[in-house]
């Protein structure tokens, strides 16, 4: 049993406030104070005339509210009928629950908004892409851009607004995150596109196609928001733990006041009130037993599976469950002051104080963003100083191209897809991981702290020894005792009955059954008087226990609980009951060690019991932290963290909740309390401790995949940065265009998603963790896969190019050269519906273009010395005018005629 109740400082005097009626002057004050102070158990009393209140400090073990009220009455005054609601009533269950559910509603609303914004942005992007990349000669691209501008702008600021806000927040501290990259990249795309839409002639004059990147800006926003939504969906409620904790509280208490018993709202209970706790009730608030005795199940708070006997003067804790027997307690702590409220507070604080893990994508962005901006600036400078005319336009275009292509849209999918596959894989074997941050944190763990009860042990009492006195048969003893224990509802009795049932024992007739709460039971079984209970009970009955005391002491030293049995007034034997170690615990510890993790054990039990368990599972005694008060568990974790460790805490009790929330990763073993599960980052369903190693292994594998994903998300875009800078320009005349940007997005997204799917092959079954370890073979496998993906990507890109070439070569080829303000072949004849490729070479020192008047999108500009290509088809027969649209050039004679014949 945890030793905290004896020396608990919380049993110091309590303070109660009584509203007093009928005081008129200072002598009334003196009189009431005098009467209160001479009441036994009152440490101090002070009465305030102005507020009409008496504040009484009393020892809850001796006196309570009723005694104080009696003293006030004896002095000749009345206490106002209903006490004011306890001080700190704002911290009661109801108000906390309201606060918590408001948080949840907020989160749900945000999540819905993210999904809405993501789907609208993606839908808009798809429509924009269709509009942009479908060849047509009906609507001029310049007019279409003016139409696309509106939805793209709406998406940019409605759905993309959060990136600006986040980037601003990060920027104020001089930092850059993934949000910065998204904000900068999409803004560059949007600003450039708006400019192109508004002033296409400026771009045209620079010899560039007036192409926009509205598709890029919207799809990046859409996909990144989709990723966010996927991630938040996996995350769940962090406030759930607190809600569950609050749910543990009783809602009413049975108050005894002035000899009248009534059920009242918990918020009306004040310190000093007498409360009756009936069998099966939850203890409503913290207090001391004033009358009666009972066994109270405190497992939810202490993790201790064996109920604790409480009698007059013992402390009882709110929210624990009274098993059998009824008692009257005196309230000591209510509202915010209860042990449960303090756990809520600890969980809240631990959750709040946990430094958010910087996501990998953010860490990359932090370095990547400044580099991109620098490269873009350099690009601008080089174009401006050494580039062709018009220098400003071309330099700006190159600058913007670098910034646009630097923002990989697959970046938003890199983490969420890996997390989805990883968590899905874990769920198959009962490893429930709460979101990406938990996964990332679990992959970095180097120290595991295991709670003893319920994690390494079964957390349920079981008979470990049946010791009859010489001459008594142990089966007979078990038969007699189990028959009697069937009647009791005590968990220790249940353990004995369970053992007996294995041998089909314990069905003897019982008469005169009698339970003495907290001490034992007796009855007439099969004609014998049988008594089962504590050593003290047998001593009181005058039964000599000497024959077995040595055995009992040895068992107690190992942490076992001893039940003594007397038959017909003589000692018959004893049962030792312990919480047995799980069969898988030793293997689990071995596995964690093999993964390079340091394993510690943490328990509220005494050192000898703790070391006995530690020895069984293979934890050295210098890694055992014993005799830890429930409230100090999180402080212990904090201490380990202060030593620079990344700590995972594995536990199951409510008392573990603050430690679970405090640890870098809280792992709840699923047989435990819901609260522990809610406060944790990882839940292991079924209670197999070997899953701890599996969960950490899976997390490590997932992080590896996330890293690879981020590499591939960035790789294609980084490859295109030199293209955007214009490295290919001198040789091929190629700079960044929307088709290249879209291609990079598609390729990186495919790489990322398929790479994440590879996580499906990870073996996470308990005990199979070895297979997850990474050798040279794993490295080759990972490398090979990624190279294959790259090759496929290149093949797809090559295929598209080849198809394009093939289409070109099957089309009618026409070469036109512009020199000295003349088209070399001004007059052309083609057929309607026939694909034509015009190769336009500009030999003049100024920009020219070749366009067909009255047909949208049949227009190809070329800078001096450049050769540009245009593929088009005209469906309507007729005679069209060919001209150069640069102002003044047509007038100078750059005209021709295009005759389109009927097919």
């Amino acid at each position: 049993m945890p030793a905290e109740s004896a020396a608990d400082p919380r049993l110091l005097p309590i303070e109660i406030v009584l509203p007093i009626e009928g005081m008129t002057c200072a002598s009334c004050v003196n009189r009431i104070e005098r009467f209160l102070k001479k009441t036994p158990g009152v440490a101090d009393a002070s009465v305030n005339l102005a507020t009409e209140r008496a504040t009484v400090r009393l020892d809850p073990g001796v006196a309570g509210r009723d005694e104080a009220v009696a003293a006030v009455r004896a002095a000749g005054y009345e206490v106002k009928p209903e006490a004011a609601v306890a001080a700190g009533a704002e911290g009661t269950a109801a108000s906390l629950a309201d606060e918590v559910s408001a948080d949840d509603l907020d989160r749900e609303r945000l999540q819905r908004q993210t999904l809405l914004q993501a789907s609208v942005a993606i839908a808009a992007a798809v429509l924009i892409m269709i509009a942009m990349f479908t060849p047509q000669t009906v609507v001029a691209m310049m007019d279409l851009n003016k139409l696309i501008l509106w939805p793209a702008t709406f998406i940019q600021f409605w759905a993309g607004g959060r990136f600006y806000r986040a980037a601003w927040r990060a920027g104020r501290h001089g930092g850059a995150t993934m949000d910065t990259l998204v904000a900068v990249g999409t803004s560059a795309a949007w600003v450039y596109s708006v400019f192109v839409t508004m002033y296409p002639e400026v771009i045209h004059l620079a010899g560039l196609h007036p192409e926009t990147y509205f598709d890029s800006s919207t799809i990046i926003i859409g996909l990144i928001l989709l990723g966010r939504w996927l991630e938040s969906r996996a995350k769940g409620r962090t406030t759930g733990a607190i809600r569950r904790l609050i749910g543990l509280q009783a809602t009413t208490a049975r108050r005894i006041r002035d000899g009248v018993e009534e059920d009242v709202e918990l918020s009306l209970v004040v310190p000093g009130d007498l409360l009756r706790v009936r069998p099966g009730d939850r203890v409503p608030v913290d207090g001391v037993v004033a009358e009666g005795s009972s066994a109270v199940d405190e497992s939810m708070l202490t993790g201790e599976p064996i109920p604790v006997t409480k009698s007059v003067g013992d402390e009882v804790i709110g929210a624990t469950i009274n098993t059998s027997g009824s008692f009257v307690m005196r309230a000591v702590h209510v509202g915010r002051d209860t042990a449960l409220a303090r756990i809520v507070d600890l969980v809240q604080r631990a959750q709040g104080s946990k430094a958010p893990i910087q996501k990998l994508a953010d860490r990359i962005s932090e370095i990547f963003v400044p580099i991109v901006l620098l490269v873009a600036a350099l690009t601008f400078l080089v174009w401006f100083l050494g580039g062709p005319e018009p220098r400003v336009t071309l330099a700006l275009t190159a600058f913007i191209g670098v910034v646009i292509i630097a923002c990989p849209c697959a970046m938003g999918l890199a983490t969420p897809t890996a997390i989805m596959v990883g968590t899905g894989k874990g769920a198959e074997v009962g490893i429930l991981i709460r979101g990406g941050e938990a996964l990332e944190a679990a992959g970095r763990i180097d120290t595991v702290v295991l709670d003893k009860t319920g994690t390494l042990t079964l957390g349920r009492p079981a008979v470990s020894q049946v010791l009859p006195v010489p001459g008594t048969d142990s089966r007979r003893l078990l038969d007699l005792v189990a028959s009697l224990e069937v009647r009791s509802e005590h968990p220790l009795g249940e353990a004995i009955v369970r053992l007996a049932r294995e041998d089909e024992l314990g069905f003897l007739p019982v008469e005169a059954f009698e339970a003495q709460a907290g001490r034992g039971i007796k009855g007439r079984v099969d004609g014998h008087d049988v008594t089962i209970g504590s050593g003290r009970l047998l001593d009181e009955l005058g039964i000599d226990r000497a024959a077995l005391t040595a055995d009992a002491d040895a068992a107690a030293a190992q942490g076992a609980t001893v039940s003594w049995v007397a038959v017909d007034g003589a000692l018959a034997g004893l049962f030792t009951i312990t919480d047995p170690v799980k069969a898988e615990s030793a293997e689990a510890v071995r596995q964690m060690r093999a993964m390079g993790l340091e394993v510690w054990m943490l328990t509220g039990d005494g050192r000898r019991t703790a070391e006995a368990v530690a020895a069984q599972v293979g934890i050295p005694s210098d890694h055992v932290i014993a005799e830890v008060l429930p409230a100090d568990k999180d402080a212990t974790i904090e201490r380990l963290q202060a030593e620079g460790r990344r700590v995972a805490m594995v536990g199951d009790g409510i008392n573990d909740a603050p430690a679970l929330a405090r640890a870098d990763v809280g792992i709840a073993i699923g047989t435990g309390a819901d609260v522990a599960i809610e406060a944790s980052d990882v839940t292991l369903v079924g209670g197999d401790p070997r899953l701890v190693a599996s969960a950490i292994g899976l997390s490590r594998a997932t992080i590896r995949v996330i890293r690879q994903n981020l590499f591939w998300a960035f790789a294609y875009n980084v490859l295109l940065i030199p293209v955007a800078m214009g490295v290919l320009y001198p040789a091929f005349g190629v700079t960044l265009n929307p088709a290249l940007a879209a291609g990079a997005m598609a390729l990186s997204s495919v790489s990322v998603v398929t790479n994440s799917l590879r996580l499906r092959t990870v073996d996470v079954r308990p005990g199979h963790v070895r297979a997850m370890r990474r050798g040279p073979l794993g490295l080759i496998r990972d490398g090979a896969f990624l190279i294959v993906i790259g090759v496929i990507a290149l093949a797809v890109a090559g295929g598209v190019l080849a198809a394009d070439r093939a289409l070109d070569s099957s089309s009618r080829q026409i070469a036109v050269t512009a020199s000295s303000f003349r088209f070399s072949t001004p007059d052309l004849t083609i057929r309607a519906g026939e694909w034509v490729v015009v190769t336009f070479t500009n030999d003049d020192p100024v920009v020219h273009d070749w366009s067909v008047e009255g047909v949208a999108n049949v227009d190809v500009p070329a800078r001096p010395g450049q050769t540009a290509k245009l593929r088009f088809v005209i469906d309507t027969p007729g005679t069209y005018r060919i001209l150069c649209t640069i102002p003044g050039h047509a007038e100078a004679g750059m005209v021709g005629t295009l005759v389109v014949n009927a097919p």
Partner: protein
Amino acid sequence: MDKHLNMAHGHDQAPVSDDAGLDPVCGMTVDKASASARELVAEHEGITYYFCGRGCKLEFGDDPGRFLDPSYIPAM
């Protein structure tokens, strides 16, 4: 504090006026009629005393001699 001294000075003398009595316990001036109406009166050795409230009356009843002693200084 000034008030306190005044009261101390006058407490064992005859009531200030016919309507007002002096509470011997706390030294407050009390309206006789309303004190009577609330039963805040007590007889001791033939003299009627008036009180501001139940506390003073009960205190007085417990030990009248203590409050009538000339060295007693009212609580206020």
